[in-house]
């Protein structure tokens, strides 16, 4: 495993799942590309022109011909990276501008030390992210639930900014197409006893991202997806 960072983080691929982010995706991709030369956008059937915008930014765009859900986009991204690239490290980063590429850079740097399989971003490690109270409460509930079910003592269980070694990425089992992928990643982590660490990251809540709301609704759906999956597995 290389210790020095190659220029443009050439040993890394950043997966950016995207659905209808025409307003912000160009800016996000520009910032990511300033630090990472390998970026793959997984376009989950966007209908607002983000597909063309992403393509115009000169990144690889893998497009779902229909909207399947964030989990499916992540699964496609992992499939792409593992089957069509030689990347040593894989980063997942949201297309809506909440995540900072410099945080992703630092996370990959941690992985390069060679002692960990996964680095998870956390909003709750003393950073200054201004999280709206209602959202913070829902996140706290989600964190409590995931800690209960996976027994992982994490501070932030639903953060889309994550970094994996190639081997760890190959062990992720993402089956739910919807919003439950965050919990599935952690379940895979626990099941394969991957070595992980949380690092503090800053998540920016702009009017744009707050306007997308629906945290409570997502939480209900995630819980149902996970519960149903458990019942199906028991059959």
């Amino acid at each position, binding site marked *: 495993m290389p210790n020095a960072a190659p220029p443009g983080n050439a040993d890394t691929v950043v997966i950016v799942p995207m659905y209808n982010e025409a307003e912000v995706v160009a800016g996000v991709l520009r910032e990511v590309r300033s630090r990472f030369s390998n970026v793959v956008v997984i376009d989950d059937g966007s209908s607002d022109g983000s597909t063309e915008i992403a393509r115009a930014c000169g990144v690889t765009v893998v497009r779902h011909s229909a909207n399947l859900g964030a989990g499916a986009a992540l699964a*496609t991204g992992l499939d792409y990276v593992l089957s069509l690239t030689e990347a040593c490290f894989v980063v997942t980063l949201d297309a809506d501008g909440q995540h900072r590429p410099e945080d992703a850079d630092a996370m990959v740097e941690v992985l390069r030390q060679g002692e960990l399989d996964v680095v998870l971003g956390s909003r709750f490690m003393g950073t200054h992210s201004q999280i709206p109270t209602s959202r913070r409460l829902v996140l706290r509930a989600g964190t409590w639930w995931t800690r209960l079910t996976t027994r992982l003592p994490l501070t932030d269980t639903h953060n889309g900014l994550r970094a994996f070694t190639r081997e760890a990425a190959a062990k992720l089992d993402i089956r739910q197409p919807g919003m439950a992928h965050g919990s599935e990643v952690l379940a895979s982590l626990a099941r394969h006893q991957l070595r992980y660490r949380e690092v503090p990251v800053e998540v920016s809540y702009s009017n744009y991202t707050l306007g997308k709301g629906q945290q409570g609704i997502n939480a209900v759906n995630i819980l149902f997806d996970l519960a149903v999956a458990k*019942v199906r597995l028991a*059959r």
Partner: protein
Amino acid sequence: MTIKILLLLGLAGVGFYAFRVTSSAAHLALRRLAGVLILALGAASVLFPDLTSWAASLVGVRRGSDLVFYTLTVVSLFVWASVYSRLHALEERYATVVQRLAIVEARDPMHAHTTAREHEDV
């Protein structure tokens, strides 16, 4: 009293059934037989109206029409469970196709450009 046990068993059965794989040949045969049986019972109770009263008294239900109602409810729930289960299976297969297509088109951009122009996105 008997009817309570039967209904509870029926509801429990619906609960299990909702998450079963229902695409096998055995399940298809079962659904078809059940359909025929329900039609036959329905026809019988139309031809012999006292049949439902008799059956009701057997299981501890006061009126024949009440028994018909309970039976209809449980059967309906089974139908919903079956539809839900098969819809879920269909969505999984559909997602797999869309994902594989996405990878294939990413691997072969020239081909992707042509197919996207010729066909509407699904």
